[in-house]
Each structure stands twice: as C-alpha cells, then as structure tokens.
C-alpha cells in the first residue's frame, strides 16, 4: 500500500479514538438534556472538577490549603497519605453525587418552569463558580493524573503493522490510553443502556425525558430523578476527566473539552445517546482527516478549532434536529 494512504488510515484510526473522547463528554450533556431539558454548559467544568478532586484525594492534598494559608498565615499542603486509585475514584464519585444534590437543592429547584435560555445561563454561571471553586479548593497548577492506566504508543501494533508499508512507514502509532478510553466508553454506554432499559429507575428516567408532567402524575419524583441524572452525568464527567486528565494533565484547559463536545451534540442531536457516539466519531475522524488532507497543507493548520463547528453548521442547515435528534414539531 502507498504510504500516503497508510498515513490517512492512521489518522482515521486516531480520529476515531479522539471521537470516543468527545463522545464521553457529549454523553453527559445528552443525559441531562433528555431528563431535564437543561443544556448543561458546566459539563466540561464538571469533568475538570472531578479530575481535580480525584487527584487531590489520591495525593492527600488539604482542600482550600491556599486560602487557609493566606488567611491564617500557616503553611499546610498535604495530609501526607496516598489513597489507592480505586478508592480515590469511589470517593470522587461520591463527591460528584454530593455535588448533584447541592445543585438540585440550591439551583434547579428554584428554576423550575423557567425558560431554557435562563437555565442555560444558570449552568454557565455554575461553570464559572465551579472553575473558581475547584481552583480555590485544589490549587490551579497543572497536575499529573495517574490511575494506573498504560500510556504511550502501542509497540506491538507498531511492529505488526510495519510490514504493510514501504521504507518511510514505521507502523501505526496508537496511544494505549486511547484504546483503554474506547474500552471504558463502550462499557459505560452499554451499562447506561442496560440501566435505562431494564431497571425501575431507568424506566422512570425515560418517563421523565418523555414528558415531565405525565411522569409527575404517575408518581415519579422529579427532584429525585434530577439528582440521579446529575449524579450519573457527574460520574460520566469523572470518567471523561480521568481519560482527558491522564492524557494531557489536569488543568484549566480540561474544561474546554465542553466546547469540543458541542458540535458533536449538534451533529448527533441533543436528545440521542447513539447520536452522541456516532456524532463524536464523525467529528473526530472528520476534523483529523480535514487537518491532514486540507488544513495542514493548504490552510496553515490548526483547523481543528473550527472545523467541527462548520461541519455541524452545514449539516444542520439540511437537518435542523441533528442525525438522531427528535423531530422538531412546532405548534402555534
């Protein structure tokens, strides 16, 4: 096979892996949007906050140590213990559940029946709040996240695929972490589907997503459902935070993955879980291939910033509800 084609295949595979990462974030959006009609801009910051909390617990950092030191003139940093990764993940998930309860009690409860735009604004406010709060609690320096996932290129695959190409080709480079991320994303999606199809709570969730009032009238507690949904979204954010954090360090830019997930949502439709997956894959492959074939050689590179949006924009003009979204029916 010619090398150019092999490079294109490598780019495509890497694009698929990147797409999985986008889907992970988009999944959290879809869950909340379906269950409460809230477009949760804070999903990216939730991933950041979850990852920060995980690293903080793992390393035994003292929360708010900067603030305490500034106010009382002390000098404390760490408790001096290290929590094993699995326990730390459980504790971080617990923190996200607590967060869901607080959000429901102090924000959502008061904003029932407001227009969607107001709720959207509230989540942007929440994103700002959590960004400051997370930094204040755990410090704003770049942190290394290590939960024991393998990293670096897969040498095995590289050696095996080298034979396909000629002299200039050294085999496919694929990050092991991306493979694990794909695996976890698959597990997550399958368990979410099983949960929503075969459990009582899952059925209640789908009922609420279908029709709030009808769900209320058959005795489903809307507030409990919201807490559950935000907890699940928090857990998805934790998984996304672990994957992205392990890849590029836990820092402020992690919260910007929300911006990567938005075109995925538009493409896949705001209300569809399969849409989030398929949309993520399309966007991942599309932007990597575009950068490889057109962006880098002809347009000066860095097209990944906007290509996804443009693709989604053009796509939406022909299909305003996205690939799998519910058909928009408007009544006067």
């Amino acid at each position, binding site marked *: 096979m010619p090398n150019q084609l092999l490079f294109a295949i490598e780019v495509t595979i890497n694009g698929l892996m990147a797409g999985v990462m986008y889907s992970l974030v988009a999944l959290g959006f879809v869950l909340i949007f379906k269950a409460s009609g809230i477009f949760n801009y804070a999903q990216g910051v939730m991933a950041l906050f979850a990852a920060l909390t995980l690293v903080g617990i793992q390393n035994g950092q003292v929360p708010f140590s900067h603030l305490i030191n500034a106010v009382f003139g002390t000098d404390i940093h760490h408790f001096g213990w290290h929590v094993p990764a699995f326990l730390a993940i459980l504790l971080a998930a617990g923190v996200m559940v607590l967060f869901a309860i607080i959000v429901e009690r102090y924000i959502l409860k008061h904003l029932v029946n407001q227009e969607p735009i107001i709720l959207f604004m509230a989540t942007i406010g929440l994103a700002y709040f959590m*960004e400051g709060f997370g930094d204040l609690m755990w410090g704003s320096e770049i942190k290394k996240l290590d939960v024991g996932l393998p990293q670096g290129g897969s040498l095995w695959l590289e050696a095996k695929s080298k034979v396909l190409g000629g002299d200039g080709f050294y085999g496919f480079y694929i990050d092991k972490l991306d493979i694990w991320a794909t695996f976890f994303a698959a597990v997550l999606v399958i368990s979410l589907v099983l949960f929503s199809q075969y459990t009582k709570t899952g059925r209640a969730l789908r009922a609420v997503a279908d029709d709030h009032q009808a769900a209320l009238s058959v005795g489903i507690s809307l507030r409990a459902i919201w807490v559950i949904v935000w907890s699940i979204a928090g857990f998805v954010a934790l998984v996304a935070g672990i994957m992205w954090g392990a890849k590029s360090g836990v820092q402020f830019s992690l919260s910007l993955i929300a911006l990567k997930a938005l075109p995925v949502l538009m493409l896949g439709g705001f209300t569809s879980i399969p849409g989030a997956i398929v949309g993520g894959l399309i966007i991942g492959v599309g932007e990597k291939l575009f950068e490889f074939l057109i962006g880098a050689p002809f347009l000066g590179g860095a097209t990944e910033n906007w290509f996804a949006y443009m693709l989604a924009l053009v796509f939406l003009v022909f299909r305003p509800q996205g690939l799998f979204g519910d058909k928009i029916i408007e009544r006067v």
Partner: protein
Amino acid sequence: MWYREAGDFKKTYSEDSQTFPIRLDRIGYFVILLVAVLVVPFFITSYAANAVLVPFLIYAIAVLGLNILTGYCGQVSLGTGGFMAVGAYASYKLMTSFPDLNIFFVVILAGFVTAAVGMMFGLPSLRIKGFYLAVATLAAQFFLVWLFNKVPWFYNYSASGQINAPERTLLGYIITGPNTSPSAKYLFCLAFVILLAWIARNLTRGTLGRSWMAIRDMDIAAEIIGVNPLKAKLSAFGVSSFFIGIAGALYFTVYLGAVEVGEAFGITQSFLVLFMVIIGGLGSILGSFAGAAFLVLMPVLLKNVLVGGMGWPTDIAAHFEFIIVGGLIITFLILEPHGLAQLWRIIKEKMRLWPFPH
C-alpha cells in the same frame, strides 16, 4: 409624590409617544447626559478612564448590540467575540490602507463590514433554532478568530501577529495611539454610545423592533400575521453586528491600542457580553447599560477589596472573582430572571405609588 405622570398633560402625538413619559425621568436623563458630557471629562483620571469608564462605554455598545439580537429578536448568539474581532481588524485595515480617512468614519465603516459578516453568519438562523443556533454561532467565533490568526494579510504581515493602532486625530485632538488623553478617549466613546443608544431605542420601538419582538415571542405565529422572518432575522443580525463591530473597533483603536486576536476576542469575551445582557435584562436598553456597568465595575471593586484591602495574593482573589461572578449570576437568575432592568421597573412602580403601599 413627585414621581408620577399625573398633571403632565400630553398635547401632541409626539409628546404622547416620547421615550420618557414621566417628567422626572426626562430631567434625570438630561442631567446624566450633561454630567457625562460636560462635567466628567474635566475630572477624569487616567485610571478611571482605562479601568472603568472607557471599557464600560465600549461594552455598553456591545451589550446593546447583543441585546437587539438576543433580547429583542430572541436569537441567542455566542459569537460576539468573533464579531468584535471583525470590527477591530476592519478598522485596522481601513486605518492602514487609507491613512487620511477620518477615524470617526473608520469606526463607522468597520461597523458596516461587521454587519455584512454578521448577516452572513445569520443566514443559518432561518433554519436552525434555539440551542442549535446558539452552538452554531460558536462556529463564527472559532472560525473568525482562526482566520485573523492564520491569514497574514489581516495583520499586515507583522512578525508578532499583533495589530497596533496608529495615531489618528479628530478635530485636532489625538484619539488613538499611546499619547491619547483620557478625556479624549472617553468623549470619543461617549459620542458613539449616545448616538447608538438613541438609534437602538428608536429602532426597537418602531416597525422593525416590533417585527423582531414578534419573531422572538413565536416565529411561526409572527410569520402567519405577516412578519417576514428573513427580513426580521437578518436585519436583527445586521444591526446587532453593526453595534458589536463598532464596539470591537473602539475596543481595539481607543481602549487597547494593540491586540492579539485570541486573547482579546476569545470565547470568554462572548460569554462576558452575554452575561451583561442577562444581568442587565433581556430586551431593555437601560438594562444594557446596567449590565455593562455591573460586570465592568465588579472585578475592579473585588480586586481593590481583596488584594488592596485584605492583602490576599492575586491568584486567590482571581479564584474568588470567578466564584463570585458565577454565584451572582445564579443568584440573579433565581431571584430576578429579568435582570437589573426589571428591578428598576419595580422600583419605579413603587415610587409612583409612594407613600401608599398599593
């Protein structure tokens, strides 16, 4: 007792339809205008101009623009930063290509260029609605910033990729460049604010404004009663972008003087202006000013209190700023989703009845 319309008889149609029907409002408006034009320029310090007044005036223009689009026409836009960048780069190209062109016309022309770009990005709004549109406008944001970063023609092939405003004068006074006096900066921006606020106020209560509001309230119903959605939506995008372009041009030429596009016109800028609209009040001219004033003043105050007053390190103060801004936005939305403008309306209602409770 003194704040009411009783005894203030309207004898002509134009009196009946004036902007401020209550006499005290009219007096207050002209007093504020006189103070702003005749008193403030003589007492303005460099710090007050650069930290508070000039950014307030420029953001007020941008907020007016976004309020026309989002508050009056109901189309949520997250592309404000990108459109401000268009205004800034248009003014830069005009200033360097036509050195003799008056700076006033440069700014106005930059507004028209932005209006054209805005209408182009407004075209999808005819098909895409709601959140899908809000996210679609992000395409404008990212694409425009990328464009100004990557195409060297826009920054005249300068090595740093920055654009710098050359010195320009108006009526003999220096308006742009490092040697500008604070009062000149202030007055130049103020002139635009007064002009554009007047235009905005009169547009929004005329035919065009009513068609925007009809589209906002329900676009299908508006279409049925004869509002042309193409005309209404595109004119809203055009007018809004015109305002935002002027704000961007002023932000670059008068306020900053040197700009790097990703820093000055990034996504945070879009959100900041949107917050100003929400906190001030959707669909209110006064609210636009209140929102801009609130979010320009608050960080300055917080910084002075936390860093200056309590001696905290700046990074902790910055974290607190995020927490307080976010918390305030949520609190505002819970307590008063219609913003500062609604609070002012409630106060006015109370004042008209005062001293009686009902």
